[in-house]
């Protein structure tokens, strides 16, 4: 059972965002980068599926600059077998990203392609289903747990109002969210082994982005906070303010 996991290198979620001089991106100086947390869930899911199957390889694919190699190494250290770095520019246009990734995956024998449900930087939440359409494969989004059963993959997803169990024929694309797959830590042995695993770097196909960031701004500051009072005695005043000043009750 070969599985491809698509990853993205993103600023750590604890990052304080500063706008760069051009006003269209963030200041990257001093920013710590990590594997997008949802992609970690996808990778963990892939590793467990391969362990359950007993055979096959887990391949990582990312679109990004050379620094993304570090994120791929981290994935290899967790247990993936090989990695491909598609050297190219990541834009807000998820379809451009999906096309670049599809060009790589089309030639790979992997019945299952997994991605995080969204990336923790641009939050577009779209590359997975777009990739599925480009590849002509079925897709389930926001999957919390899955199991491969013969020629199908059975997925559980949380929806508004309940839990859905879906069956998709393979090959298929799944986007994974927080659920059953708490990511493992890379062992020292894993980190050492990762240095010897294949990490291929190649140019991404050029796709003209259809979405462009014209300007990036910090959100307006909220007015400084006000403490209404201490303890339950503050409740009548709080309710009065919510009703008369904020008019939300």
């Amino acid at each position, binding site marked *: 059972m070969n599985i491809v996991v698509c990853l993205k290198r993103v600023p750590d979620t604890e990052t304080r965002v500063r706008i760069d001089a051009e006003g269209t991106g*963030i200041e990257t100086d001093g920013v710590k980068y990590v594997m997008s*947390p949802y992609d970690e869930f996808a990778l963990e899911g892939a590793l467990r599926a391969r362990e359950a199957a007993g055979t096959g390889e887990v391949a990582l694919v990312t679109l990004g600059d050379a620094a993304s190699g570090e994120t791929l190494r981290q994935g290899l250290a967790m247990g993936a077998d090989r990695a491909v770095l598609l050297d190219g520019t990541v834009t807000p246009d998820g379809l451009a990203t999906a096309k670049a990734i599809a060009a790589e995956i089309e030639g790979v024998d992997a019945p299952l392609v997994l991605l995080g449900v969204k990336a923790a930087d641009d939050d577009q939440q*779209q590359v997975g289903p777009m990739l599925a359409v480009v590849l002509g494969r079925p897709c389930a989004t926001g999957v919390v747990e899955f199991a491969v059963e013969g020629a199908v993959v059975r997925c559980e997803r949380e929806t508004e109002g309940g839990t859905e169990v*879906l069956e998709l024929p393979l090959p298929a694309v799944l986007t994974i969210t927080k659920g059953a797959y708490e990511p493992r830590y890379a062992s020292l042995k894993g980190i050492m082994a990762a240095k010897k695993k294949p990490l291929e770097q190649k140019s991404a196909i050029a796709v003209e*982005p259809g979405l*462009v*960031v014209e300007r990036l701004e910090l959100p307006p500051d*909220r007015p400084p906070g006000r403490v209404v009072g201490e303890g339950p005695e503050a409740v009548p005043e709080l309710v009065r303010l919510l009703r008369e000043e904020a008019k939300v*009750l």
Partner: protein
Amino acid sequence: MGDVLAVVEQRGGQPRGVANEVVAAARLVAEGLGGATHALALGGDGLAGAVGSLASYGADRILVGEGAGLARFQPDAHAEVVSRVAGAGYDAVVFCATAQGKDLAPRVAARLGVPLATDVTGIDVTSGGLQVIRPVYAGKAFARVGFRASPALFSIRPNVFPPRQVPGAGEVQSVDASHAEPAARLIEFREAGSGTLDVAEATIVVSGGRGMKDPENWHLLEDLRDAIGDGAGMGASRAVVDAGWRPHAEQVGQTGKTVAPKLYVAVGISGAIQHLAGMRTAGTIVAINKDADAPIFQVADYGVVGDLFEVLPRLTGAIRELKAGG
């Protein structure tokens, strides 16, 4: 030219409340571009009789696709029908960034071969073309985004674009609702407790953190939510979701949902940077925390420093009284 399509959701054969927000956003764009606003709703047989109300919220025409295979949201079936309609000459197509909309919109975009902007909080049609504003890094920054392809597809964040009543009577018209049999098969559906409202759609969010001490104490927050009533939903901090106290669906913040309710009540939440990012665009923020130095108080319009186990029941009681008094 300049026509805009609003793709609206229905549940149980009725348009959802957010449908009017999508129509309002679409109309903003259509007015800027000098075109008409059309709404598209897909569902089971009989839907056409239930969508007329969209006209009074600004839909000049209401397109309805009916079929047994569309009664329940089936991503591929819906995407096929929506793509066919959306690709027929619209300048922009607007979705709602609900769970369903976030699943549907990328499939439509990829089928049409055009990009998509998700979770839009601002629309600008004054500067010559259409630009939208959307949060990135879960709201730590906002990007003004321009489209280099047509139609321009985007989804709006719930609770941001207020519905507008517009006099007029859009006619209801049916569209070709044929679609291929979806490859994905629904095997089972386990309904969650009734009355649960998605935190991203709630107009008032009651949210709990570590300070709640134990998942057993959540009834205190549920009481407050129920006292507030309609439109109130439950949120949670990452810490309590990681601890397994609450489901991930309730998590607010960078690895959860970004929300913009009119009122956000943070109870026992200290306010980590990734949590603040996810709720700082709320209209009014209330914080209840025993630690006066907690960062949550820096963004809270109204803070109460104190023991939440004393403050919460009192607050719930006061709101019940208020509601009872009308």
